[in-house]
């Protein structure tokens, strides 16, 4: 198999399928090479796709997409050992194009790749790209385990395992402090039971993000999302902190599932699938060279994930679109050098999503150096609220005056001030 296309896309996830769709709509002869049995078969998401980038690309298409539930309830749960505080926000307005929806990737990606095919893209599955082909420093095609493919341009959307980008010198191999490992379980539960348990209407969903220290020294996060007739429950942590603490991800997961803030939601649920995936947490500093002669990088391969908001798949769609548009422009001017493709990098770095990631640069490293943060603030909040709801003969004003000393018992005042300055800068 040796064939020539205008453009080759590596990976049929949301980044690759979007880039291919944009190009195919502009009559570019594009092929998507996917290593899985079908698009989505290798892919895992925590749970929520924010559909704005999808809607910008194909207005109203989200209405026919295989979405699970519209997230009407977003909550943060601050966990301590035997206490937790839930901050929950609910909006029951009509579904719209800026909402988040829970999805399952083997359904969603399969459907979404079909949209690229309908636009005219060719999809080859069960084919692994082993290397990028180059000629005098310019990428000219891909070597697959079924033969070579040539094209004017290659868009690499290979996911969180960035072997191709590394071989091409576009990125250094990520370090353990730049990646998180997450495990997730699909727990089936009848849809009416989900609705009762979470207080949801039909087609409405909840997303709960858990913050707090399950294990001392670990920088980790948990999540619980509602699908139509299952729950997605998972826990992830920065790999370097797991190495330090020597904890198995599935032991962490079990501990998370047994926490009193999680366990009641899962009762009587049946495990359907156990999954594991890496999440790029390298942030802005860890982003690869986004373009070079004959090549563009999009999606997880470009380290496009936001640990604060949980965005990822929407950023894949955004970058896939921009890469596709840059490829269209390159074909119009028949120039595939980095000079033409530079527009992609500029546009992506100027997007509000990447500006957020840039602003948060160093946030996780700060928390990794100060893992006490993970437990100190949730513990202080839980202790203060616990005291507030206790009728123990002390006065209300006494309880309020006690709060500063509760906080200071969890973390030193100088540290608190430093946290406020550092963390404030990451968001304001």
């Amino acid at each position, binding site marked *: 198999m040796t064939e020539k296309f205008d453009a080759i896309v590596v990976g049929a996830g949301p980044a690759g399928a979007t880039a291919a769709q944009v190009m195919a709509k502009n009559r570019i002869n594009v092929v998507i090479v996917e*290593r*899985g*049995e079908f698009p*989505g*078969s*290798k*892919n*895992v*998401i925590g749970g929520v796709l924010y559909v704005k980038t999808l809607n910008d690309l194909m207005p109203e298409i989200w209405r026919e997409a295989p979405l699970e539930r519209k997230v009407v309830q977003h909550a943060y749960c601050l966990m301590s050992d035997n206490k937790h505080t839930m901050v929950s926000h609910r909006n029951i307005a009509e579904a719209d194009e800026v909402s988040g929806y829970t999805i*399952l*990737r*083997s*359904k969603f*990606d399969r459907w979404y790749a079909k949209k690229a095919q309908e636009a005219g893209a060719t999809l080859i*599955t*069960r*084919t*692994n790209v*082993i290397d990028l082909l180059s000629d005098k420093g310019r990428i000219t095609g891909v070597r*697959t*385990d*079924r033969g070579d493919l040539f094209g004017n341009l290659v868009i690499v959307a290979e996911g*969180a*395992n960035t*072997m191709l980008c590394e071989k091409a010198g576009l990125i250094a*191999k*990520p*370090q*353990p402090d730049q*990646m998180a*490992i997450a*495990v997730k*379980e*699909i727990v089936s539960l009848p849809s009416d039971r989900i609705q009762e348990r979470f207080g949801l209407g039909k087609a409405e969903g909840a997303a709960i993000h858990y913050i707090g220290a399950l294990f001392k020294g670990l920088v980790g996060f948990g999540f619980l999302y509602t699908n139509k007739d*299952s729950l997605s429950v998972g826990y992830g942590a920065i*790999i370097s902190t*797991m*190495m330090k603490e*020597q*904890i*198995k*991800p*599935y032991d962490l997961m079990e501990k998370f599932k047994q926490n009193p803030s999680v366990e009641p939601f899962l009762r009587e649920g049946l*495990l*359907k*699938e*156990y*999954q*594991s*995936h*890496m999440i790029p947490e390298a942030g802005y500093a860890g982003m690869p060279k986004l373009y070079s002669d004959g090549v563009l990088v999009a999606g997880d391969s470009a380290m496009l994930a936001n640990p604060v908001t949980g965005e990822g798949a929407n950023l894949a769609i955004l970058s896939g679109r921009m890469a596709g548009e840059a490829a269209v422009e390159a074909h119009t001017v028949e120039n595939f050098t980095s000079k033409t493709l530079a527009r992609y990098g500029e546009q992506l770095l100027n997007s509000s999503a990447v500006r957020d990631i840039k602003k948060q640069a160093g946030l996780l490293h700060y928390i990794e150096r100060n893992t006490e943060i993970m437990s100190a603030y949730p513990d202080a909040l839980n202790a203060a609220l616990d005291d507030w709801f206790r009728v123990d003969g002390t006065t209300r004003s006494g309880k309020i005056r006690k709060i500063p000393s509760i906080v200071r018992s969890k973390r030193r005042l100088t540290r608190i001030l430093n946290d406020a300055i550092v963390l404030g800068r990451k968001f304001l």
Partner: protein
Amino acid sequence: MRIDEKLYLLRHLIDDESHIKVDEEACAKCKDRFCMNICPANVYSYLIIDGVCKVFVAYENCVECGTCRILCPFIEWVNPKGGMGISYRYG
């Protein structure tokens, strides 16, 4: 549910050839054993055979997260052949 029972639920298309290579010499001397301690699919285990410490790689169990590739320089992890390996039903 135990982890081996959880792994049993997964659907893999298994290749005859392993997509994971380890540096046996380095593994025999390794004290950290991060691979064994962190792999979410229990791919790695250490066995002592005739007094020699050997790492055993159950590549058939791999869920392709790639974590071992990040945490150890002596593991050469590549994607399984096209169409092979984990195939999630939900994802």
